[in-house]
């Protein structure tokens, strides 16, 4: 019999990994577009991306729950396609986490993208490199550190997520009971010893993660963190 807390740790790591991968695929092009566009809609998109930083997670959870409900088109469509309702499933947590951690992925990466010098891209273009070629061979290597920071923060932020999961998770032991929920349950049932174990673990994990982010930032002044044109 595996300790239920270990199962929660497993669910949490799985959730954070998948969330980070989804963000990598979906949010990278979005970030590039925000960083490079001069279109006015940028000023609408930037605050939208940043919203999860300011909003209480309960606001997101509240609306997500309404969205997931079979009472509306989206929830109904999902239930028809996948044969079961979306709320209280692992997939629901992934959707919630992607939205919740979006700014933590986009913002560091945006800084990195903005610091890629336009001349390099122009030069590559004159040599015949297409946009995708330029992105992969120039932008990605130059923004390597931005990617690392973005992915680390998105991952760590998802691990620490609580409010949204509390509202859309349903606390199902082997599917949606993540670490923070298990911790909450221990506190509520007065199992402070177990709560300490999880809390201390989470604290250590968070500190080490942030330490690594800041430390790597400090030691290597790589291009994304220096202004491109002096």
């Amino acid at each position, binding site marked *: 019999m595996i300790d239920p807390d270990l199962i929660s740790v497993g669910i949490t790591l799985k959730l954070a990994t998948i969330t980070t991968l989804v963000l990598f695929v979906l949010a990278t092009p979005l970030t590039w577009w925000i960083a490079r566009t001069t279109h006015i809609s940028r000023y609408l998109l930037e605050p939208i991306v940043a919203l999860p930083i300011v909003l209480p997670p309960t606001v997101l959870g509240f609306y997500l*729950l*309404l969205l*997931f*409900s*079979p*009472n509306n088109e989206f*929830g109904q469509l999902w239930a028809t396609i996948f044969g079961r*309702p979306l*709320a*209280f499933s692992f997939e629901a947590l992934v959707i919630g986490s992607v939205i919740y951690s979006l700014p933590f992925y986009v913002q560091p990466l945006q800084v990195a993208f903005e610091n890629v010098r336009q001349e390099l891209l122009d030069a590559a273009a004159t040599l015949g490199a297409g946009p995708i070629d330029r992105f992969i061979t120039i932008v990605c290597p130059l923004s390597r550190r931005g990617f690392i920071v973005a992915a680390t923060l998105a991952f760590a932020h998802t691990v620490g997520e609580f409010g949204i999961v*509390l*509202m859309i998770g*349903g*606390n*199902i032991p082997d599917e949606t009971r993540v670490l923070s929920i298990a911790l*909450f*349950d221990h*506190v*509520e*049932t*007065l199992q402070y010893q177990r709560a300490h174990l999880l809390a201390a673990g989470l604290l250590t994990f968070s500190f080490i993660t942030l330490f690594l982010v800041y430390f790597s930032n400090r030691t290597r002044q790589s291009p994304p963190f220096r202004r491109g044109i002096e």
Partner: protein
Amino acid sequence: MKQTRQPPVRRSLGLVLLLTSLLTVPLTLKSDTLQIAVAANFRPTLLRVITALERQSPHRYKIIAGSTGTLYAQIVNGAPYDVFLAADDARPRLLEEARLIEPGSRRTYAVGQLALWWPGSKGALSRDSLVNLRGTLAIANPDIAPYGRAAMEVISSSGAHDYRLITGVNVAQVYHFIASGNANAGFVALSLIRDAAPANNTFWVVDQNLYSAIEQQSVILKSSQLATDFDRFLRNETTWKLLAKDGYHVPGNPAGGVSE
């Protein structure tokens, strides 16, 4: 406009002063204010009780609502509450064992009634109808909430088998799960659906003999005349009428010597 051009240092100084003054507000609370920590499910009823009480008392009553477990943890760690109205009898008992309450003040102030709410049900509901339930069934976390524990007792004796059980932190969340259409049915406190007044055939007040009683107990944490008066008011006719209206059973015998 002029304000926005202030140097940032002065602005942040202003902010600090504002925050400091906000933080010190609780210190200036008058001593004739009673601080009542209450389990969130009882808050609406307590507000009505307080309204009735304030008609005959000049004092102020401050309500701090939270989950019973959270409030318990705060009390153990020295939270300055005068009275604690829990949603169960376990936490008040623990406080009594830890000698954190006024001796002899632990009493049942209300008995909760469990109700099954099933918006899409067909025909009159009973325990036997649970066998036909397909889909998501929501209950409050049985480890945390007394209503969840009671619900679990009913479910396990009902023969229901083809459902997906999800748990909310408390009955209010269970209510929200059902109201938003994400759960097909669920067990809530009768007090919650009294307000919503759902169609007659969609809810069932569970027979009291199908689950062990949900005794909500109160304790006095810091004795004072004000606390004693409140405690007494909690057990008088006016309060009992409000309790009954909100879907609670009135505890024990009326003479004040309320059963445990």
